[in-house]
């Protein structure tokens, strides 16, 4: 029982010979049914609206650079959730996997004075281990991933703050390993060869993009990634096709933990400290990106490009409304509404496309 919340009507007996298009959207839909194009259009429109209302929306230092920094974090957070959505699972512990990995990194920098990259590696390993633990519990007990990761998150909330207060230094580490500030403050425009300077892109953006490309490659081309998707599509058929299902479940969750750790690292870089509140704001964005981008909760298919667009859309709304002097709380109202409207429209679009498809 891995797919927790199928619509209850999904058990209606289906005709032996008809197609099953009703249960999952077919891939052969017309181009305008592609949610990613719609997202891109909405992003463009919003950027135009915001920049006409507030010219500062296009200001490099005030808006564009911080926006890219935030986007990098939320993209990786979205990827962390996407890694298990591929299975039809959820990871509610993404926030705290990020937190405990950030603790590990901060501790390494503080007490072992390791270089930046080594601490990152240590943190990624911790994230992977915690993720693998979640995956192992799920596959060994067969219990719903929602319950397991919820409980794990609960436990980690306590563990992280205990760690900070007992073997950490209160709520944050003071250590700033070499390179941290550069990574935080610099953009490629600060590096010039003669009079040719790079674009105003913060240095952490390539890290997030690299993660996205690797995840996309994993699910599109690698055997392990594809087998994870097949497991998400139909676990019984996967087992009967010779796929080591339990191992793939553990691997997908470990990947989720690793990406959560990376997101924690990026946020720590952005905010300038490895602190206990890292990850607190991750839960909603982790679902926003993939779900807006068209990744289903039922598993078997993921869209990394969609996740990028989904994360970008939320970031544009966030920044735009901020500039229009909306409070943080008002932001939530609009982001929630956007999610609802986007998903409802997606549904409408699918119904229309299917109707048209069946007539053709």
């Amino acid at each position: 029982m891995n797919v927790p919340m199928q619509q209850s009507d999904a058990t209606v007996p289906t005709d032996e010979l008809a197609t099953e298009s009703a249960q999952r959207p077919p891939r052969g839909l017309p181009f305008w049914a592609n949610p990613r194009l719609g997202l891109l259009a909405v992003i463009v429109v919003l950027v135009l609206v915001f920049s006409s209302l507030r010219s500062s929306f296009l200001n490099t230092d005030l808006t564009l650079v911080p926006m890219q920094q935030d986007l990098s974090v939320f993209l990786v957070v979205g990827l962390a959730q996407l890694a298990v959505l591929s299975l039809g699972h959820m990871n509610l512990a993404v926030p705290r996997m990020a937190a405990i990995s950030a603790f590990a990194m901060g501790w390494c920098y503080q007490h072992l004075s390791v270089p930046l990259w080594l601490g990152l590696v240590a943190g990624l390993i911790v994230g992977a281990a915690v993720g693998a633990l979640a995956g192992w519990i799920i596959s060994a007990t067969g219990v719903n991933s929602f319950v397991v990761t919820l409980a794990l998150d609960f436990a980690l909330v306590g563990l992280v703050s205990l760690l900070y207060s007992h073997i950490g230094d209160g709520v944050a580490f003071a250590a700033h390993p070499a390179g941290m500030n550069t990574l935080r403050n610099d953009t490629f425009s600060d590096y010039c060869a003669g009079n040719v300077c790079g674009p105003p892109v913060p240095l952490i953006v390539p890290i997030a993009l690299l993660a996205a490309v690797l995840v996309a490659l994993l699910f599109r081309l690698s055997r392990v990634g594809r087998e994870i998707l097949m497991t998400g599509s139909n676990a019984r058929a996967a087992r009967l096709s010779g796929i080591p299902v339990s191992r793939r479940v553990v691997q997908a969750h470990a990947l989720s933990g690793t990406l959560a750790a990376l997101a924690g690292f990026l946020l720590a870089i952005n905010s300038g400290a490895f602190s206990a509140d890292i990850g607190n704001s991750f839960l909603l964005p982790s679902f926003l990106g993939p779900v807006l981008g068209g990744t289903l909760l039922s598993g078997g298919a993921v869209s990394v490009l969609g996740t990028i667009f989904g994360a970008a859309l939320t970031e544009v709304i966030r920044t735009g409304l901020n500039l229009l002097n909306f409070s943080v709380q008002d932001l939530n109202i609009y982001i929630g509404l956007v999610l609802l409207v986007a998903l409802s429209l997606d549904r409408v679009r699918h119904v229309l496309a299917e109707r048209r498809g069946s007539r053709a």
Partner: protein
Amino acid sequence: MTSTIDPTSSDARRIGSGNALRLREFVRSTDFTLIVLAAAGFVVLASTTGGNLFTGQTLKAVFQYLAVPILVGLAQMAVLAVGQMNLSVGVVTGFTAMVAAWLMVRVGLPAPVAVLAAVLLGGAIGLANGLLVVLTRINGFIVTLATMTVIDGLRYGVNGTGTFQNYSSGLVKLGQGSLVDVPNVFILAVLVALAVAVFFRRAVLGRQLLASGGNPLAARLSGISNDRAIVMAHVLSGLLAGVAGIVDVALSGSVNASIGDDLLLPSFAAPIIGGVALTGGVVAVLGTCLAAFIVRLIDVAQAQYSIDKSWVDLIVGAVVLGAVLVTQVRIGKKGART
């Protein structure tokens, strides 16, 4: 005519020892385990704190602050009954609390009207959740994740981060008062729990919700609308969250928008520890209440021993994981193999 070979003949014998059988079943049930745990926890706590727990004020506080966890646990249980989830339980509690206070302080409505309006508001939000799930066919998790975000914003929209206080002194008096040393709000929570239990056990609608959650196909073939069941479950969940909001208003004497922040996880913990399955079709009112009580005991222990508050989260998380594992072991390995 009589069956020559009756597969049910063994039942005749079992009926004779029906009471013994039921007792044995009860001893093996989750409820029994929880009762033992709760009692043991209470006794250990009471004895190690040197009877401190039995002083009127402490004991009263234990039960006063049990009301909200019970109510939000029941609110989550109501949607779990039909195989749904409601992530907005916590923020609805906070929002209805803020609206009730706002109606009294700013609009000047009398307390009973404000209370009623706030509970109905909870129900209306539940109705919206249910309709969205049914009409869009989007996963209930995502729908309530979205409405949770919206309501989270609305909650702060009422009064920003400001605090409402000095509202109806009658309501606060009622909320903080007690009937023969039993806190009023706890009595309210128990009465609500009883009503919910009766609803799911006896009411036609309640049974329809459970039938729909337990076997949607059988429910549909019996003329029960699964869509209606989902909507009604969300409405009930919203109403219960609204009642929890009112309890917060009445109990604390001052409210701000942060109410409900820390209720999401407990709302799941209580029913899950209490033995409710995420797949739907089962409710456990007693189990949910007992689980809320056990979590409350951990809270009290934290306060009594002045331990780091973080331990509470760590332990509750571990207990839920443990409960999950134990349930699985109890169901047995046969389920794992298929």
